[in-house]
């Protein structure tokens, strides 16, 4: 796709999809001179940084801290994975679909646990949807129709900077020709955030009271009068006003974030939210959607689901997929010290996990596949640098509302893509196993 390095003139690549967050803006214009990115138009500050600084902090190939070739690293990685009895493959969200697809093939081959960064952010949202379903829509429906938007426990102004202008707050669409003037924006959170400034109303609730608040709203929606004067630190009358706005909107949507999934109650908060928004459909059109975060998290959940049936926390040790959050999720596997080798791809596990989990990771053979140096690559047994997906490697990614888009390769990289590295590791593992060297013990005996 990209022309060869060395062309002196300016090359402008249009319609580029940004790999940074779940908003997945696909209108970026990347200016390339002499194979280097010189400018990025239309992106937010986060997206622009991602492109402009993609050359900084590149990882280097090495084994046990010593420089090595990519080929040597791939061989070493395959040796580790082929010998492991209960390995973990983790990360996987800041890359493109085909690499994600290959990571599942590898997990199937070696009987690994496979989990991705969703596990530590929106996994409770996924569990909540598994419990009660969801009334939802793509962002274009919000742009074209929504006259009431509630941001609850999320902060798009900082985490998803172009969501408000492209899809929600100021976006103009078929039945919202005047943009923000055609809608009401409400922000509910435990403290004001920059998102609060975009809102017409702000409701500040007590931390960890979300479940109670949703339940109270739902009870009142069903016609029950409550005895309490306040719920979640907010007067009942204020909740009644909110409820009335929800019922009388023509098309309302509630966006939620990690303020719900990572606070007390976790997936139950989201269950309560989802049931409230489903119930509102007796009165009007009402929807809900999670503000999914980093990179291509949704893509990983998608491909993992179509290949294994489950969106995260999948275990292949018996030769078929099993799903059990709390057992096969990354936090539990590491905290219990169960896995005996790990491959971390496109994520900084050591940098983000609590000390106890990071400790276990450092005590086992660990492969880090990443374009950049991180706390993880610093301590990994094998480091394999790769071309950054969405910048130096093409592929596909998913928006937070499950819409797939192509990611373009805009510049070349001296390193192979994640996909190519995984394909080569798979080939090598197959070769090792068919040579009868380093094969796993049968499933079931693996967890000694």
């Amino acid at each position, binding site marked *: 796709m990209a022309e060869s390095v060395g062309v002196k003139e300016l090359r402008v690549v*249009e*319609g580029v999809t940004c790999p940074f967050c779940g908003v997945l803006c*696909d*209108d970026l214009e990347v200016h390339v001179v002499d194979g280097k990115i010189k400018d990025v138009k239309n992106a937010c500050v986060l997206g622009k940084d991602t492109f402009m600084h993609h050359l900084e902090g590149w990882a280097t190939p090495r084994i046990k801290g010593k420089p090595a070739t990519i080929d040597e690293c791939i061989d070493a990685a395959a040796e580790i994975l082929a010998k492991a009895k209960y390995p973990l493959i983790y990360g996987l969200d800041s890359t493109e679909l085909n690499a994600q*697809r290959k990571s599942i*093939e590898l997990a*199937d*081959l070696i009987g690994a646990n496979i989990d991705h960064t969703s596990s530590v952010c929106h996994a409770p949202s*996924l569990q909540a*949807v*598994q*419990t*009660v*379903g*969801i*009334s*939802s*829509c*793509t*962002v*274009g*429906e919000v*742009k*074209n*129709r929504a006259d009431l938007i509630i941001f609850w426990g999320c902060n798009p102004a900082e985490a998803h900077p172009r969501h408000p202008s*492209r*899809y929600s707050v100021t976006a*103009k*669409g*078929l*039945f919202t020709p005047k943009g923000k003037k055609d809608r009401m924006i409400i922000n509910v959170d435990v403290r004001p955030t920059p998102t609060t400034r975009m809102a017409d109303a702000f409701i500040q609730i007590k931390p960890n009271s979300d479940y109670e608040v949703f339940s109270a709203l739902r009870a009142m929606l069903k016609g029950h009068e409550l005895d309490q004067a306040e719920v979640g630190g907010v007067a009942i009358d204020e909740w009644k006003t909110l409820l009335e706005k929800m019922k009388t909107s023509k*098309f309302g949507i509630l966006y939620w974030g990690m303020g719900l999934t990572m606070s007390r109650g976790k997936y139950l908060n989201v269950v309560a939210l989802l049931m409230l928004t*489903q119930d509102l*459909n007796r009165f*009007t*059109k009402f*929807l809900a959607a999670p503000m999914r975060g980093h990179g291509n998290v949704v893509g990983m959940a*998608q*491909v993992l*689901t*179509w*290949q*294994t*049936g*489950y*969106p995260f926390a999948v275990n*292949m040790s*018996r*030769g*078929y*997929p*099993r*799903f059990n959050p709390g057992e096969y999720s990354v936090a539990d596997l590491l905290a219990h010290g169960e896995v005996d080798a790990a491959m971390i791809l496109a994520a900084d596990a050591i940098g983000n996990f609590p000390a106890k989990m990071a400790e276990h990771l450092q005590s086992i053979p660990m492969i880090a596949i990443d374009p950049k140096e991180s706390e993880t690559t610093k301590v990994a047994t094998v480091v394999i640098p790769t071309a950054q997906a969405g910048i130096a490697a093409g592929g*596909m990614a*998913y928006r937070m509302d*499950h*819409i*797939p*888009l*192509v990611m373009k390769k805009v510049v070349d990289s001296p390193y192979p893509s994640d996909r190519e590295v995984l394909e080569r590791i798979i080939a090598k593992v197959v070769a090792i196993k068919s040579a009868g060297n380093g094969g796993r013990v049968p499933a079931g005996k693996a967890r000694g």
Partner: protein
Amino acid sequence: MIGHSLKIVGGEVYDPANGINGAVKEICIEDGKIVDSCKSPAEVIDATNLVVMPGGVDIHTHIGSPAVNAARGFRPEDHRHAVFAKKPGFRSGVGFTVPSTFATGYLYTRMGYTTVMEAANAPIGVRHTHEELMDIPIVDKGLYILMGNNEIVLKYLKAGELEKVKRYVAWLLRSLKGYGIKLVNPGGVEQWKYGKDVEGLDDKVYYFDVTPRQILKALAWVNESLGLPHPIHLHANRLGIPNNYLTTLETMRTLEGSRLHMAHLQFHSYGGENWGGFCSKAAEVAEYINAHPHVTTDIGQVVFGDATTITADGPWQYRLYKLSKNKWYNADVEVETGCGIVPYTYREKHYVNAIQWAIGLELFLLIRDPWRVFLSTDHPNGGPFIFYPWIIKLLMDKEFRAEMMKRVHKRVLSDTTLPNLDREYTLSEIAIITRAGPARALGLERKGHLGVGADADITIYPKDSDRERMFEHPVYVLKDGEIVLREGELVDSRLGKTLFVVPPDVGEMEPEFKAEFENFYTIEYENFAIDIQDIPNREAIPAGAAR
């Protein structure tokens, strides 16, 4: 494989498209196609005492799409009791009503099916569908594109610009590598965007001011004037609702003069003013179809047990959620369509479910021309496709049918015509409703038969008086002339092709379309179309002459 040849000898051949009804006949294969003769075949399959048929063709199934994947993801309880372990060359998987992709390909092949059509795809999600189809091994696949609630179509219709609709439809098919035009509750799903539905064919759609009847007529006309190989594929208005047979009859009458495929007819053949009066109108619907050759149909047979209902018919799914009290997934898609998912269990002793079961069988038995009625469960809406052999047994064996009638709710005996129907399908008729007929209705000239030039997709079944066991356990399955299942075991997981139609050139979209597109969508116009290179194994099917 170039130069590879193979011969099947001694088998009883059922190839209704070529008038062969159980004759013992040699089948010769070269380079993946059926040929007149081959001199020194690399392998000879002895099919003595076996039954040879073309590979099965499923004209309507939901096996891979954003909606199907949403269903998989939110139904972990569906997967736990149905697992498929990996083995060398084969991937692991799970799933009963919504199997994972690899398992889907293996399960269809194990049943002797080699071509399957994914029946409902929102245009903006087609990129996803192609990715899933690439992970469904062995079988050939195609996909229909949802257009009956597309706001661009509605806008052109509002302005009376039929030629623009035609150009847009051709552009959609060309850009997305789709196989045909699908309509789901035309007009009704657009109404669902504000929580409503349409009541009948002449209700106006909010803002766009067009009626379901106008949408039906326009897209049927476009389909015929583009010469597409398959008729419009219609999920009619009022699915699942008592007394919907009136809408069904009116819909078919409205489209006299063009070809029409009525999907999952069972769900559209209900009488009664309300659920209490729910009854069968299969006889009325079958009578109309018997007298009107423009209609083909698949049944959407109900199978008792777990199902997952997945449809673009958002308002119906909301009703089913309220009726069943099961969990409910709704996902409306900008500009294009809706989507609803509700798990459902069909029970033998539940009178509505039992009558639904009977209606499907009544339609199969009352529609006289097997070339116009095809086997489907509307997988997984009426039940999983793995129960096709059970349905075949119900159709071929009236004693088995009578036994089942004793088990199900007693109103089947008193309130439907099923107890009076003695018809038993022959093997040849089964070959028609499961392969020859759907292939013909799809305009797939090299599928569904064993004549010279056909794709060598072939299934060899054991002879077994238990027809369920027979159709459940093929001895051999050949895909493109290669043995993929031998002695009942899968031996090859090659990737099949994605079939897509090439519409005639009716002109590009106007330059202002880009701005229009970007005003209402949330992606760039240039990022919408799918590069043909992104679909590695593919086959283009040319459109024919305008009708």
